[in-house]
């Protein structure tokens, strides 16, 4: 069964450093999303992406964040200058055009900012 994959599974970085989180959505999916979950809290929406542009973004998704689909398979989330409060689990999700509302999640990247 097709799955969303994410790399790396864990990332430790120093405050102020740039990180890039990578995702490979399910191959025939057209809609892509990033969510984050701070430890012990609920999952929060960051951004959605369709047709090579951002469809919607939350207040969390400020100028420090950017997303890109650099090729036909990868979908990346970049955090330019990480802050301590960026430590969280970051989930990528994707959905197809027939059931756009049903999002399938990757296993997540656990980001720790020191």
């Amino acid at each position, binding site marked *: 069964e097709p799955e969303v994959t994410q790399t790396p599974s864990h990332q430790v970085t120093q405050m102020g450093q740039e990180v890039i989180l990578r995702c490979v959505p399910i191959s025939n999916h057209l*809609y892509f*999303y990033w*969510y984050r*979950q701070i430890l012990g*809290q*609920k*999952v*929060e*929406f960051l951004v*959605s992406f369709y047709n090579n542009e951002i*469809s*919607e973004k*939350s207040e969390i998704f400020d100028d420090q964040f950017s997303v890109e689909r650099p090729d036909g398979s990868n979908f990346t989330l970049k955090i330019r200058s990480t802050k301590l409060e960026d430590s969280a*689990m970051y*989930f990528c*999700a994707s959905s197809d055009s027939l059931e*756009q*509302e*049903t*999002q*399938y*999640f*990757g*296993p*997540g990247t*656990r980001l720790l900012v020191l």
Partner: protein
Amino acid sequence: AQTVTQSQPEMSVQEAETVTLSCTYDTSESDYYLFWYKQPPSRQMILVIRQEAYKQQNATENRFSVNFQKAAKSFSLKISDSQLGDAAMYFCALITGANNLFFGTGTRLTVIP
């Protein structure tokens, strides 16, 4: 604005028994979908079940079923014949036309052998 409320931070169930997890939501949209996601200790988010708001029939997936009460804005998950592998955090989620999921705070389910 959309909100999802899970009032049970923790629940426990004996193996092979049935448990019901509660969820209420609020939205002014008429077209929406509801979901239950499971998050085991590995922290992956796994889709358990989905319900279209326009359908009156409650969704069922094997041992998992929902009780969707649209007027009351209630969407509970029933797990029958609970298994040890069902132990996880369960998140209720709502999506409307904006297509981003709104999650509840989760219910941690413990299955007692």
